[in-house]
């Protein structure tokens, strides 16, 4: 028997799996946000209007919402190794398509399809949970999520330079193409280098695929309600594309999509019913009961944190470039300051939450988030650039630490359902991204930041309904002896 320390510099056993997995996630983020830092060039080559650029950004995140659900199910069935490899390989195709796009329609379709790569997060979460003992899981998932998210910063930081090296109007095409090649190549490396579980692993409890379990009648309806926004936002996006607004879709196509979304919602309702119909006649054993409102609160918070991160990462390079009249390379580098914080703040949020209590930390971070975005809303060309960068970094700290703190609470709600709760929470992050970018398409940057600040205030109110999850039942005394915490005597 041997033990493995949690050593970040190690590249063996579970640490090796962690490194290989966050790199996979990192690459999905590079590919997913490879357009953001080069929007100006893309806009010029393809001759896009401002509205079309904003539409591209929204389309880029839309498909991630349904894709997450499907990818989550596939991971349950086939395991993370093969699903991650397939995802990386498959979505390199729309990436190449985007690199070769000549019209707005081509680019829009490629970008819409590429949104599916945003579903990578859940796969790695599953992988990491197979390899790490529970006491290291928070940190490991923080590193996975945080370092992976850093991919968008890396894209912002490097791709404009890569484009410049190839030069010309088509430089961005090569830069985008290269990210596709990296993704494709890495899919093979990943497949060859990891295994789903440590040796000698055990069988899984059959999961209720497709729907989250709830444990009371009220929670059943609550869950149905919480599923609506995921479809509503896609329906709204369709409306934006319909003849009434942008006219990218025909009336028939738009109606077709709406009918499809309604049908999909009812399929999901049916699944929820199949999994949960027992709550209507048999009481759930106390050991398995939990309150769904805890999940709902985390969903709202992740909507505001991760959702705003994705939205801001998409628009920030363009925002800096136009506000401060910077070169694309410079704007990309400055904008990457936002995502740069990911390296530390996401794991940091988990750590703070472990140390100082779940609810207080979340309250402070959410308040900071609201203030940060309010400050971002004030940024204009009269500000010195450095101050704008500091504001972006401060704001991003609260956003990403908030994400870490949300995911530190997820396993404490109902351990048995951790995977499904994480899946639903993550999906709300994507819903947030689409919502914010849809808002961005309609308003200017300053209003956009104010809207995020307002939803953060909403998140703060929702947080008041969160019940501090039950924590440790034992404590370690100064002399090193472990004692039970006396709950009631």
């Amino acid at each position, binding site marked *: *028997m*041997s*033990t*493995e320390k949690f050593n970040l510099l190690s590249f063996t056993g579970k640490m090796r799996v962690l490194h290989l997995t966050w790199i996979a996630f990192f690459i999905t983020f590079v590919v997913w946000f490879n357009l953001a830092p080069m929007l100006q060039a893309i806009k010029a080559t393809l001759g896009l209007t401002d509205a079309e650029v904003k539409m591209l950004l929204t389309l880029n995140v839309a498909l991630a919402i349904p894709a997450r659900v499907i990818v989550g199910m596939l991971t*349950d*069935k*086939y*395991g993370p190794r*093969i699903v991650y490899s397939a995802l990386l390989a498959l979505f390199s195709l729309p990436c190449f398509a985007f690199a070769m796009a000549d019209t707005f329609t081509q680019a829009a379709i490629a970008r819409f399809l590429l949104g599916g790569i945003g579903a990578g997060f859940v796969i790695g979460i599953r992988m990491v*949970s*197979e*390899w*790490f*003992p*529970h*006491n*290291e899981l928070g940190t490991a998932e923080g590193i996975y999520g945080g370092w992976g998210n850093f991919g968008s910063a890396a894209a912002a930081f490097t791709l404009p330079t890569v484009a410049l090296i190839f030069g010309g109007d088509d430089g961005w095409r090569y830069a985008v193409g290269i990210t596709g090649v990296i993704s494709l190549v890495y899919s093979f490396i990943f497949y060859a280098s990891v295994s*789903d*579980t*440590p*040796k*000698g*692993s*055990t*069988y*899984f*409890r*059959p999961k209720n695929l497709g729907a989250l379990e709830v444990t009371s009648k009220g929670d059943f309806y609550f869950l149905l309600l919480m599923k609506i926004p995921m479809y509503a936002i896609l329906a709204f996006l369709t409306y934006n594309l319909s003849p009434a607004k942008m006219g990218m879709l025909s009336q028939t196509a738009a109606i077709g999509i709406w009918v499809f979304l309604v049908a999909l919602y009812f399929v999901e309702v049916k699944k929820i019913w199949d999994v949960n119909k027992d709550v209507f006649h048999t009481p759930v*054993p*106390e*050991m*398995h009961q939990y309150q769904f409102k805890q999940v709902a609160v985390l969903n709202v918070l992740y909507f505001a944190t991760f959702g705003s991160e994705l939205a801001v990462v998409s628009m920030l390079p363009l925002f800096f470039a136009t506000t401060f009249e910077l070169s694309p390379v410079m704007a990309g580098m400055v904008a990457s300051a936002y995502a740069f914080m990911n390296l530390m703040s996401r794991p940091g949020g988990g750590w703070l939450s472990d140390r100082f209590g779940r609810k207080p930390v979340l309250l402070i971070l959410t308040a900071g988030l609201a203030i940060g975005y309010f400050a971002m809303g004030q940024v204009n060309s009269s500000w010195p650039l450095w101050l704008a960068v500091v504001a972006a970094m401060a704001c991003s700290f609260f956003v990403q630490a908030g994400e870490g703190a949300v995911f530190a609470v997820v396993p404490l709600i*109902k*351990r*048995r359902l951790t995977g499904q709760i994480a899946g639903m929470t993550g999906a709300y992050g994507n819903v947030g991204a689409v919502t914010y970018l849809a808002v961005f398409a309609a308003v200017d940057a300053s209003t956009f930041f104010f809207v995020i600040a307002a939803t953060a205030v909403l998140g703060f109110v929702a947080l008041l309904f969160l019940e501090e999850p039950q924590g*440790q*039942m*034992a404590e*370690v005394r100064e*002399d*090193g*002896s*472990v004692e*039970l915490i006396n709950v009631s005597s």
Partner: protein
Amino acid sequence: MMTKTKAATAIESGVLQPDTLKLSIGGYSDAGAKDGNDDAFAAYTPEGSVKLIKGAVACIADGVSCSENSHIASQTSVTNFISDYYATPDSWSIRDSVSRVLKSLNNWLFSQGGLLNRNDDAYVTTFTAAVIKSTTAHIFHAGDTRAYLLRDNKLELLTQDHCRFLAGNKSHLVRALGIDTRLEMDYLPTELKQGDVLFLSTDGVHEFVQEQDIIALAQSPSLSWEEKAKAIAVKALAGGSDDNVTCLLVSVDELPLEDINESHRALTELIIPPVLDVGMKIDGYEVLKVLYSGTRSHVYLVKHPNYQRPLILKAPSENFTEDAQYLEGFIREQWVGRKLNSPYVMKILPHDGEKFLYHLCEYVEGETLRQWMLEHPLPSLNSVRDLLQEIIRGLRVFQRAGMVHRDLKPENIVIGNDGKVKIIDLGTVQVDSLEEVGSVLENGVPVGSVNYIAPEYLLGGHGVFQSDLFSLGVITYEMLTGSVPYALENAHRSPPKQLHQWHYQSLKTKRKDLPAWVDMVLEKACNPSVARRYPAYSEFLHDLTKPNPVMLRQINQAPLMERHPERFWMVVSAILFLLVMVQAYLLVAAG
């Protein structure tokens, strides 16, 4: 003063169920119209953990009247049966325990009769016993004594008389204790309900009393159970019984029915300790080293002032705080460890911590079989056989105790520095006697590890010792080749559902240096179907030591395709090629 927690009771008895089985027993026996009484009855209800694990016993016997020693036969049977039954190991199933006890009782009776060498003086007796454990009555029966179940005002005869009517309407016993060296007993497990009454009687009673009378008397409110039994016997005498009259009533006053929330509370009474670091102490055990930290458990090397040598402390992972199945297994592990006292199985030491859930085990210095395999790639058959011999010694300990390990894998076999092999991790052991205790806990996943566990678990079946043999077969194969014989991709997510999904990969391609019969031995040891596996560890070991002539013949007589697949296909291809050439020639010639 703290009362004993439920969890502590569970650790002591191996059973989580509350100790609420309540029986009232009353019996009566009288010589009746005869001079001597050849009937006998006895009953015993133990207390505490013995009642939980062994149950209560009631039995009745009727010595065959032609023999002078018949009263000895019946009396010895009922008394010895009870004392011997409670002396059997706690882990044996009731059926195993009873059949072994009765077998030796039968042999003794038969040999007593044989010593006298007179046929008319045989020690022969009928025998009917009910062992009541958890919510089931296990009835064992031979002869013409009877067991009835009185439920909802109806009397149901559970047993069948083993008699044959020959000339002159005279009945002859065809089955009874002491008739023959071979004993055949009927085994009838019967689910009980609260308020049930079991009624055991000899032919002197049940042939002379109407069923309605038995029902009425057994339910007469003012009488004690003993008085009821007597009233029934008296009724039989009044009805003209010319035989000894004996009957026994067992009333099921309360059954151990548990509430699932209650069970869950009991399981979570003990707190899973937090993950410990070097220097931390729990109940006085100081962590010297963290040996293993994984998603299922945490294992530490610890020291304690009461022990000279360091010990192993194993705590479950907090991932299992809501997994009743795992917690029950972990609590039970302690009990299993105590029952298996063998140098081939890691010892679990008792500890008096009352708050946290963990085990203490002896520390074995050595390496796991997994490490051994890494250090000895492609070992000789000889060295593998030597290890197997040791491992099988350990597995026999389980087999004898009526247990199945269920999670045998290279990580769970430790080779000590002294060369002795020890089997560790008793968290998934299936115990025959505990299987008989009804449980309300949800059972979900098959326990054990992917690739090593026998197919019958995955298909929802019960463990038998050949299930461990399967795992051993897989391990042997892996020792020899470094890989497992069944490639079950992604099996832990979607387990195979049918036996044919297990495809044995021949050893031939991986170890060309090993003779073909070794492959056949391993294929038989880990055959997906239990019925086709070896029926004993010894046969497996024997075949692996000396080529089995039957298998050798199979190899030599196997079709070419099986013996030399490449050569077979080469020949087939050559023939096809020739055929095509001939066809081409004919076509050209015709054209």
